[in-house]
């Protein structure tokens, strides 16, 4: 009976993640089908008739598992916050871009405002010389983030499998803004160049900013 209950709780937990679209907060979309399939198989296993016999002993681990499924079903999940990326410097964040290059990036875009944060970060990682982008219009969304020295960036997490491997990528901003970290923003501006410790990099000269609600798919997945 305990087995059946645990399986039902597991199925309910997975079902809730799928229905509420919180699955996109946890794993990369290319693995969604695995979860759908598991949900199906576990539901079937939970509903199959069981031969009547006794299994000895209460198992603490089993109760912990049940509790985890119940808890996971009851909470309302939010996207990974900026706190998980604390202690990183802008340099490291810029370096992270190699990990999440947009392979389908079209170099030739008439309207540079159409480029996403990931597109821009990909281009900077291939060609970091800021003069190449000077004065190009940029319009991107992301969350407000301060690096380990308090320099402002607009950033997103890039995920390739599950959240455990999330990396932060972002573009530096020319000025600090009056928002708390982790606030989702849409930033409009132009590309400017900046220098720090002898390194030149591109940053956004902010012209327009507004808050937006956290998107349903807040991570970059490629």
């Amino acid at each position, binding site marked *: 009976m305990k087995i059946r209950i645990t399986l039902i709780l597991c199925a309910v937990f997975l079902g809730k993640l799928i229905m509420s679209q919180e699955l996109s907060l946890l794993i990369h979309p290319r693995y969604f089908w695995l979860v759908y399939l598991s949900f199906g198989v*576990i539901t079937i296993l939970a509903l199959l008739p069981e031969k009547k*016999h006794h299994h000895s002993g209460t198992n603490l*681990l089993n109760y912990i598992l049940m509790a985890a499924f119940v808890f996971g079903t009851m909470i309302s*999940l939010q996207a990974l916050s900026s706190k*998980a990326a604390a202690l990183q410097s802008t340099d490291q964040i810029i370096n*992270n871009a190699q990990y999440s290059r947009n392979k389908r990036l079209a170099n030739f875009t008439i309207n540079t405002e159409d480029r996403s944060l990931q597109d821009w970060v990909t281009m900077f990682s291939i060609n970091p010389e800021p003069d190449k982008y000077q004065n190009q219009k940029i319009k991107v969304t992301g969350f407000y983030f301060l690096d380990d020295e308090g320099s402002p960036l607009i950033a997103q997490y890039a995920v390739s499998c599950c959240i455990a491997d999330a990396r932060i990528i972002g573009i530096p901003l020319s000025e600090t803004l009056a928002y708390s970290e982790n606030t989702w923003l849409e930033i409009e501006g132009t590309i400017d160049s900046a220098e720090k410790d002898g390194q030149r990099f591109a940053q956004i000269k902010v012209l327009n900013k507004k808050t937006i609600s956290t998107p349903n798919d807040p991570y970059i997945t490629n």
Partner: protein
Amino acid sequence: MLTLSNQINDFVIILLSILVEGIPFILLGSILSAIVQKYLKESHIINFLPKNRLMQKITMCLLGNLIPVCECGNIPMAKRMLSKNFGSGLTISFLLAAPVFNPLVIASTLAAFPGNYSILFYRLAFTMLVAISASYLMEKLPQKEIIKILPENNNQSEDIAKKDERMKQHQHGITTLIKTEFLQMTSLFLVGAIIAAMIQSLLPKEVILSFNNQEWIAILAMMALAFVISICSNVDAFFALAYTQIFPTSSILAFLVFGPMFDIKSVPMLKSIFTWRGLTILILFSGSLIFFLSYLYFLFT
């Protein structure tokens, strides 16, 4: 519905993501292992494997290509192998090598390091070397002291509890096998995932970045990271990519070889196969060998 503060939410998100990512593979591993339990006879094994002991181990290493379960799924398989009298040698060859020797991981390693056949080659070569060496070592040790699962037909010195379990298994259908295996493995996996998520949310991965001043420190640091970071072997190449700027290739190799073999999330599950002594010996031996091979790579390339 409860909403959580940012920090707790981060911990929960990391925990649940590891859990949800692992569940499909544990399920698959449990299904495959139940099939092995029900339908695989020793004669099948004897006919299938080559006669030469070394070739047998190599075959087991390559078996991952046929049974592409990630690190989570191969543990139920390994349990069944032990109970089917494969012996610890062959089982360990499979256990350590299968997470890397499969098409998904080979493809993702190449995708993360395009054109870099050297990294792929060394990843596979080191993995096989370590898997085979570890299996030779472990099968020489007194088996009762290192593994908990004894073969089904071993009638000597089984205690009553094991006998009961054996009898119960004979009565159970395949679905009951799958259910019990899946839930047992998942509950152990959860323990590992909780510890991994706690470490990752309290200690950002970036802390590791300061440990790269000397080659041996870098190798150890990347191995420690591999142990703590609980990501699947089919994407760890992408994860490692981000460190290639700062850490030497030898340490990246160590990460790519050690990570799929052992990490926090798999330890509780491995503990259901091995005794503490056996598991410690296995991890220490494999870890030392990987360190040694990575350092050799540094010295000679």
